[in-house]
């Protein structure tokens, strides 16, 4: 374990237009140590990595590598200086149609001092040297496209290591790996650690973090919110620093539910996950929280009929509920405001009115012909109820702010009565006042249906829900009534501590 910082960042800033994405980041990386970087989506992690690896230019602050100023203008310069990044999308790091040996020596194919003629023998020799240094046991003649994703990642990392970097950055490396493949990766990282490489490991997976971290740096809203390096590491503290606790804006009076609307029994979302059960009642707002990748969207899509569970059964109002498409779910009264509205919700060519009516065209038509007056009335009602800022229902979506666009999405699904109303990350890219409007509307209209929110930020859960469920590793690990809540226990569950059964 090294003590001097091999890589240092001081007061790093970056803005895009007037939006400040990084507000002064300072961190250190030490040789032979794994530093884990944690932060929710939008915290600025990927911008930081892109500046370090030479993709973006920094807006302020300094970087130093081994005591020297480090300011790469291009990724190639960063690599030459000794800072190498392995990307989250594994296929970005390899050329699938070439063989392993060529991939390992890929960066020698161009640049100065490279001979014009391609010498297969030399390539194989160099590749073998690289592979041996890493303990890589893959056939060098194999085509990369024939390898599994995990093996491809090994090749990508070996290729990065061929440069003998001082700093290696791994961006969410286990997101496509099984746990056995992840173990193999961890052994490799141990080996690299022994070789004295400073490793920056970006991840949301608490199991990875517990296995690997020598230090944890938490980021939130473009600044470092906590550095944890005292052993034993304070994992809950790191999660808390990452998710943060802003000032409580609205106090929620937790309500009990009248009667169950949806029950889920023994649901299993992924191989190896523990089956879980849950009940959602009429009149209550339930929030499901947990880190990125724990299965929140998987559960939302399963309830909406867009994804099939591995096992388990659902009932709605006492009758079996097993939708095989979004259409069937909607017909049963289950609505989903999906995550990432730009890709899964907004029809860019349509104005507000047409976006609001989209799922319910049949109800607004007679003999196939649309009744435009009904459509207009529905849109106008939603604009009023949700206080959408626009000139009229004929405004184009592109003219609206993020918060107002999300209000249109919520308005779409609120325009008809629901039995179960699901929202997946509804506050992503939404300003604080729009968030308050939406949350208030959800609570005010909660009678007569069950409402289910999936959120990563604890604030959002605490401000909107009567009951909070915690997910970890594709299953539910805890349940809390939103009244005198035991925040420590909640954080422990989010951080993947001891499993409680859903009470």
């Amino acid at each position: 374990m090294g003590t001097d910082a091999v890589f240092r960042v001081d007061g790093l800033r970056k803005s895009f237009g007037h939006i400040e994405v990084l507000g002064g980041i300072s961190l250190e990386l030490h040789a032979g140590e794994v530093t884990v970087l944690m932060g929710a989506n939008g915290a600025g992690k990927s911008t930081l990595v892109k500046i370090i690896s030479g993709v973006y230019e920094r807006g302020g602050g300094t970087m130093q590598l081994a005591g020297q100023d480090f300011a790469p203008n291009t990724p190639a310069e960063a690599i030459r200086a000794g800072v190498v990044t392995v990307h989250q999308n594994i296929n970005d790091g390899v050329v699938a149609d070439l063989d392993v040996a060529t991939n390992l020596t890929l960066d020698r194919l161009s640049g100065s001092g490279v001979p014009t003629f391609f010498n297969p023998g030399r390539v194989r020799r160099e590749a073998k040297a690289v592979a041996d240094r890493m303990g890589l046991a893959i056939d060098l003649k194999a085509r990369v496209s024939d390898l599994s994703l995990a093996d491809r990642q090994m090749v990508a990392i070996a290729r990065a290591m061929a440069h003998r970097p001082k700093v290696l950055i791994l961006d969410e490396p286990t997101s496509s790996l099984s746990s056995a493949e992840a173990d193999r990766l961890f052994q490799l990282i141990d080996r690299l650690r022994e070789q004295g490489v400073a490793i920056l490991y970006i991840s949301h997976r608490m199991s990875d973090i517990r296995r690997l971290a020598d230090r944890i740096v938490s980021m939130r809203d473009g600044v470092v919110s906590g550095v944890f390096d005292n052993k034993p590491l304070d994992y809950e503290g790191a999660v808390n620093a990452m998710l943060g606790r802003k000032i409580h804006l609205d106090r929620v009076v937790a309500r009990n539910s009248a009667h169950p609307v949806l029950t889920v029994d023994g649901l299993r979302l992924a191989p190896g996950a523990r089956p879980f059960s849950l009940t959602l009642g009429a009149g209550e707002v339930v929030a499901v929280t947990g880190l990125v990748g724990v299965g929140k969207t998987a559960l939302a899509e399963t309830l909406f009929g867009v994804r099939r569970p591995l096992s388990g059964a659902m009932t709605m109002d006492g009758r079996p509920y097993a939708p095989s498409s979004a259409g069937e779910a909607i017909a049963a009264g289950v609505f989903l405001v999906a995550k990432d509205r730009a890709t899964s919700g907004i029809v860019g060519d349509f104005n507000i009115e047409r976006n609001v009516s989209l799922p319910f065209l049949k109800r607004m038509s007679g003999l196939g012909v649309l009744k435009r007056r009904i459509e207009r009335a529905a849109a106008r009602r939603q604009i009023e109820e949700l206080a959408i800022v626009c000139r009229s229902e004929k405004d184009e979506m592109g003219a609206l702010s993020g918060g107002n666009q999300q209000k249109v999405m919520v308005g779409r699904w609120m325009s008809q009565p629901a039995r179960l109303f699901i929202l997946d990350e509804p506050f992503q890219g939404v300003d604080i006042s729009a968030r308050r409007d939406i949350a208030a509307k959800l609570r005010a209209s909660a009678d007569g249906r069950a409402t289910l929110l999936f959120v990563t930020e604890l604030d959002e859960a605490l401000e909107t829900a009567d009951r909070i469920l915690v997910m970890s590793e594709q299953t539910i690990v805890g349940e809390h009534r939103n009244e005198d809540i035991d925040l420590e226990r909640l954080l422990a569950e989010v951080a993947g501590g001891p499993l409680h059964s859903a009470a």
Partner: protein
Amino acid sequence: MMVRDHAIRYGFIVLLFGLIAYFAVAADGFVSPQSAVFIFQSVAITGVLALGVTATLVVGGFDLSIGSVATSAMMAAAYVMVVLEQNAVVAVVVCLLIGAVVGLINGWLIVYMRVPDLLATLGMMFLLVGLQRIPTEGRSIATGMTMPDGSVANGKFGEAFLALGRHRFDFFVPNLVPVSVVVLIVLALLIWFFLEYTRFGRMMYAVGSNERAAELAGAPVKAYKIWAYVISGVFASIGGILLAARLGRGDIASGNNLLLDAVAAALIGYAVLGAAKPNAFGTAVGAVFVGVLLQGLTMMNAPYYTQDFVKGGVLVVALVFTFALSGRGRK
């Protein structure tokens, strides 16, 4: 900018009138009933095909096989009446079936086999071009021809069928409006109404703009896409019926320009009235535009090979209007 907005919205309509004015002066006889009839005839068939391909453009696809579906339908109509000696009704039904079946196959290839739309319909185009030549060993079909097996084909085109191509309605001027134009107008109104006023048309636009959002809003996206290709196929076969009726024989060399003309009309349609999306009215205007252009060039004795050049140029200009100038492009 005001001028720019007006240029985008009305540019093509102004261009159309300007073109008519130019040819009226530059080409003798351009402004005459006979000339108008020629224009109508070519516009009608192009327009029908263009309306069909517009449906596929709306869902975000593209049907390149329309030209060969039309010529296959033409050959099939001739085959049914001359060789199989059936009547006009049977011929029409067979043609429509061909259009529907080809559309289904295109849809299946694109939606279930996940072949990209341009490639699937391109492949279908080649397939059909070859297929339509097989029954007669590559020769045209006419009454009294000898078949490959030695027999003589004695059927002929039914009177009712030929009327589709020959009959003219009186409209201000006697014998001005051919039946094909009436068919075009009826189909244009149907498609326009379907796309603008029904929930099916509306959902088709949604599928073309954001397929995932349409799916999560409960639309059976696969079905919508396949239906778009069926519509395209059936419309192309209607075009083929009109073509056969006009020619009176199964002419193997006819109809090679149909694809380019129809696609140009549909894409010009994007630029009309600032729609920046495929639409029925724009397609109709585009078809008129192409027809006027071709007739004018012909009457000015422009060589045939320059016509493709001019058509292509117009197409590129139309696309620039839509995508570069208005800043709101699809695909």
